[in-house]
């Protein structure tokens, strides 16, 4: 099936971005409205395509559109082609749907910013790039979108780049992403070298003929790419600093969509990972490490956005873990991705709403008791909270429990380890999210007299309410009649042969609920029963100190990569100036020196030349006389 509409998904927001950037200040008055309308238009196209898909048989649903022949070199043919299948449409609807809501929210949130038009231009650019990422029909097309979202992320993190720390945060995100991008470009190169093609369909068809070693190499390189974009261990350090961007950006890019691109990449490449068990296991291990890593950081953060960012890292860890569990886990990883898109975007918007009412204060120790002043924000944030900690029947309960269950059912030591990690992560999630909610909305007031907390305007709370509805209902909708699993089946065929039940679903649910209750209980004991100090206490254990420093991720990067890198650069500069420039300058100096010495012999007097000739002749004769003697 082909469809001529796919290109409009990308073209609409791309047009908006180009117009707002090129037309400049003339569009200040209506630029944000146009951008929102174009994003909504893309959502409309997505909905239309979705309805068309629903009307076709399950294996006939994918549609393609060839735009033009992009690269044609010998046997290397790449078309700029788009492909919309059951996996892509999930992302298209999430990106354009949540994206449009966040556009609407930003109209109010950014209303006092003199650069609002530029902000919307970047948001539209992001939507276009992200749609290209999920719609591309080859790794090379995906790569273009992949770099595009990286650029948009960089521009938006550094949106307020008049503050040097924000500009540095943007640079940090960009550099960390470059490391991941290197993995993706290597994966594309290996794929072309061994399989001779880079299109998804081609790689899928040829993957069976390639050696396991080559597939493992591609898989590991794809994993590197995913760790960069999705802020997974060991490239996770940029996400916390990325909160320097405006809050809608954190909600859209650094919670709901862009950071999940790594999960998309892994699941899109399921045919590679299924044939490379080592790489697949590595994916699961990275996911498990990151979900604990992020959760531990989340426990210690006082900045509401950084706590949510750590939570995002942790939740994406769940998705990557799910994606690393093989065919049985793919659909649940996507399910968690979608539900997370709702509740985390909603909570970020809630955090933005709180900041909006509290004069951009982000320290949760300066909040407290906001429930009375911001009832709608509290309600929507609360629903997102219930969803993320996995209370039934909210969305996170369905998606997260499924991942924990599948992890346990891997069997053997692998299953027990991964499952326990996921379960422990659930307990910590419950703890730090309760901490966030309690410190922000409950307890006594800890803010200054100057602050006048108030509810945000309707333009801001309507998107929050809609996202809250999503975080309530989406989990049930996705699991009802196994709808999402069946929907995704043609793309990521679940393999029932591996399905062994170590723990029954009910047992997992009860276990998860128990640990969640423990986590919530501890948080309530610690932050609701006792007073929260306004200044973070200093006499804390070494573990808390380490967690506050992001588990030393920056210190590690600085000690292991940055300092040696600096030393290496210094050494190279020194080598360049001393050895290479030194050699060149030395030749010049030698020529000049010998010239000035030899110039003294050129007196211009004929008689002195004659003298030299005579002396030379005498010397020659003397030499011959000595030799023949």
């Amino acid at each position, binding site marked *: 099936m082909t469809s001529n509409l796919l290109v409009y998904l990308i073209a609409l927001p791309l047009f908006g971005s180009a117009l707002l950037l090129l037309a400049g200040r003339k569009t200040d008055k209506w630029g944000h409205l146009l951008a929102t309308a174009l994003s909504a238009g893309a959502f409309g196209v997505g909905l239309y395509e979705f309805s068309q898909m629903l009307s076709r048989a399950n294996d006939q649903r994918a549609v393609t559109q060839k735009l033009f022949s992009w690269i044609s070199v010998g046997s290397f043919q790449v078309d700029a082609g788009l492909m919309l299948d059951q996996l892509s449409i999930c992302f298209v609807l999430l990106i354009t749907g949540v994206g449009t809501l966040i556009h609407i929210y930003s109209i109010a949130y950014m209303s006092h910013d003199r650069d609002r038009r530029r902000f919307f231009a970047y948001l539209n650019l992001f939507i276009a790039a992200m749609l290209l990422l999920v719609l591309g029909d080859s790794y090379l097309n995906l790569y273009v979108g992949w770099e595009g979202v990286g650029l948009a992320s960089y521009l938006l993190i550094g949106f307020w780049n008049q503050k040097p720390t924000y500009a540095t945060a943007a640079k940090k995100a960009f550099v960390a992403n470059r490391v991941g991008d290197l993995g993706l470009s290597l994966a594309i190169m290996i794929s072309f070298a061994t399989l001779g093609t880079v299109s998804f369909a081609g790689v899928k068809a040829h993957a069976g003929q390639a050696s396991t070693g080559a597939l493992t190499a591609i898989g590991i390189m794809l994993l590197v790419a995913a760790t960069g974009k999705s802020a997974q261990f060991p490239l996770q350090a940029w996400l916390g600093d990325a909160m320097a961007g405006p809050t809608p950006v954190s909600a859209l890019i650094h919670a709901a969509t862009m950071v999940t691109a790594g999960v998309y990449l892994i699941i899109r490449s399921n045919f590679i990972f299924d044939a490379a068990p080592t790489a697949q296991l590595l994916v699961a291990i990275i996911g498990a490490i990151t979900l604990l890593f992020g959760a531990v950081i989340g426990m210690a953060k006082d900045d509401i956005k950084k706590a949510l960012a750590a939570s995002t890292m942790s939740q994406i860890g769940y998705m990557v873990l799910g994606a690393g569990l093989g065919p049985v886990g793919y659909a649940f990883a996507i399910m968690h991705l979608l539900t997370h898109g709702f509740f985390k975007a909603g909570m970020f918007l809630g955090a933005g709403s709180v900041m909006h009412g509290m004069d951009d204060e982000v320290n949760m120790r300066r909040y407290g008791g906001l429930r009375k002043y911001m009832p709608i924000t509290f309600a929507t944030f609360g629903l997102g909270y219930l969803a993320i900690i996995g209370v039934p029947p909210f969305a996170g309960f369905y998606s997260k429990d499924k991942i924990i269950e599948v992890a346990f059912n891997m069997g053997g030591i692998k299953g027990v380890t991964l499952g326990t990690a996921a379960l422990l992560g659930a307990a910590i999630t419950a703890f730090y999210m309760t901490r966030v909610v309690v410190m922000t909305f409950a307890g006594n007031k800890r803010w200054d007299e100057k602050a006048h907390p108030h509810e945000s305007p309707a333009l801001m709370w309507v998107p929050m309410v809609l996202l809250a509805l999503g975080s309530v209902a989406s989990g049930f909708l996705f699991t009802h009649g196994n709808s999402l699993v069946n929907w995704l089946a043609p793309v990521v065929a679940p393999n029932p042969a591996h399905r062994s039940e170590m723990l029954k679903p009910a047992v997992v649910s009860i276990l998860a609920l128990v640990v969640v209750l423990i986590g919530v209980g501890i948080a309530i004991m610690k932050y609701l029963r006792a007073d929260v100090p306004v200044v973070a206490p200093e006499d804390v254990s070494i573990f808390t100190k380490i967690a506050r420093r992001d588990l030393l991720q920056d210190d590690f990067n600085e000690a292991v990569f940055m300092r040696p890198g600096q030393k290496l650069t210094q050494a190279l500069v020194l080598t360049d100036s001393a050895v290479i420039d030194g050699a060149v300058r030395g030749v010049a100096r030698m020529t000049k020196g010998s010239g000035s010495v030899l110039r003294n012999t*050129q*007196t*211009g*007097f*004929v*008689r002195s030349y*004659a*003298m030299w000739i*005579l002396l030379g002749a005498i010397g020659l004769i003397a030499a011959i006389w000595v030799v023949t003697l």
Partner: protein
Amino acid sequence: MNSANYLYVAALLFTIGSIGVVVRRNAIVVFMCIELMLNAANLAFVTFARINGNLDGQVMAFFTMVVAACEVVVGLAIIVTIYRSRRSASVDDASLLKR
């Protein structure tokens, strides 16, 4: 008479010529000293021809005379021209290449 005496005379003439080239400034005198050196060489050639009993040295002496004649023509022309333009026959004055 011993042939070696001719060689002594030739060596003496050559030495006088070469010292003259090095120490004198007047171009005409330098030129004459060069002629003296050429003639010293000629004398040596002829003496060796006599000692060895063949004509090789004699032939070389004729060559030298031809070369010396050409040299005199060209050299004197140059000296006269320089003298006309500079009013000086000193070789040290003609040092434009240095400055």
